């Protein structure tokens, strides 16, 4: 190792020196000092030894504390996540239970209707037709499945990983126009990702998700519709399909419709019972609110 060149405060290859000669020069200085003046007196030796021990104890302490700290930080992070997952699971289990109960009750209602109506098959069939139309019961039949999908995530050509760029997404209006197109093509029952639609169903966006009757559905969206034999051709000719084809070619959204036999659409999860508006009972002394002039 060459020392600093005369007249300069740093060796010209300061970094090289750092890499090649990591030992503190202080050790060498101390050794030289010892060689010159002899070993230190007894009490100073013992004091120095004590300091050395204290420093090493502190080092060990530091290591243990840092290790414990790193270990303790981990479960806290994953713990919160696990708690949320647990909560979601239990809520799903509860929803499944309620769904089973609802199906049970629905079957009971059907049985009671049959016994109550006795042999009146005409009325019974009328009731079944109504139930199918309102989404109260599961239905099967031939129809069409229209698939809408978000555009694929752009891949960074150098890293091969997905870029953070925003992808073109299917919007609630796309889903709405597809569903409306299917209704106008003669669909008798429609389900989006297994979520049956009724006359009061809503399809709308909340944040990044599309909610169908307040339940989130994710891409790809399979809109299954049961209807007449030519429902697929009629849908393909509809304005909704033309609009979606335009979006698909422009933004890379996935859009396809295919005929499918023996579709089974589940009963709707929401209560399709009609709700009536009632006038507010007028209270004496109360004046109707005046409209601002």
């Amino acid at each position, binding site marked *: 190792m060459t020392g600093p060149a005369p007249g300069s405060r740093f060796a010209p290859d300061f970094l090289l020196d750092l890499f090649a000669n990591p030992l503190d020069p202080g050790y060498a200085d101390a050794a030289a000092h010892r060689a010159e003046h002899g070993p230190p007196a007894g009490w100073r030796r013992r004091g120095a030894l004590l300091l050395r021990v204290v420093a090493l104890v502190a*080092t060990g302490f530091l290591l*243990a504390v*840092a290790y414990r700290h790193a270990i303790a930080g981990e479960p806290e992070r994953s713990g919160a996540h696990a708690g949320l997952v647990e909560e979601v699971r239990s809520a799903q289990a509860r929803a499944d239970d309620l769904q089973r109960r609802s199906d049970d009750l629905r079957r009971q209602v059907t049985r009671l209707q049959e016994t109550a109506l006795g042999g009146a098959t005409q009325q019974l069939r009328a009731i079944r037709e109504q139930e199918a139309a309102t989404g109260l019961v599961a239905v099967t039949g031939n129809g069409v499945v229209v698939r809408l999908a978000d555009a694929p995530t752009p891949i960074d050509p150098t890293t091969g990983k997905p870029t953070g760029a925003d992808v073109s997404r299917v919007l609630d209006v796309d889903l709405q126009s597809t569903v409306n197109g299917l209704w106008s093509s003669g669909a008798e029952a429609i389900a989006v990702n297994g979520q049956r639609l009724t006359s009061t169903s809503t399809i709308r966006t909340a944040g990044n998700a599309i909610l169908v009757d307040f339940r989130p559905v994710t891409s790809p969206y399979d809109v299954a519709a049961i209807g007449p034999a030519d429902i697929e051709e009629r849908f393909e000719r509809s304005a909704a399909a033309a609009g979606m084809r335009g979006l698909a070619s422009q933004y890379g959204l996935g859009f396809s419709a295919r005929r499918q036999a023996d579709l089974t659409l589940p009963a709707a999860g929401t209560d399709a019972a009609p709700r009536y508006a009632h006038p507010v009972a007028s209270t004496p002394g109360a004046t109707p609110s005046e409209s601002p002039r």
Partner: protein
Amino acid sequence: MIAVLALVAGVVAGVLLEPTVPVALQPYLPIAVVAALDAVFGGIRAKLDGVFDDKQFVISFVFNVLVAAFIVYLGDQLGVGGQLSTGVVVVLGVRIFGNVAAIRRHLFRA
């Protein structure tokens, strides 16, 4: 021998006492560990070189930890804490590597 015992005693104390690190000091903990390791490996190398000195070791330990923590603190105040931490870790890492290489040469003659 006494050094190893002291180190072990420190680890045992740290495990048994279960100290909680104050939130304000938490960012400096990893850097302090690396700095302390640098001082320890420097001391081991000096021992093997036959030039070990207690005063030098203790001072290098204390100052390494304090300076490393100070640099991180400064970086935090300037808004470049992450980058300065990386710099400190790189420099100390290079020193540790160099010292460990010297220790290896002493122990294995290779």
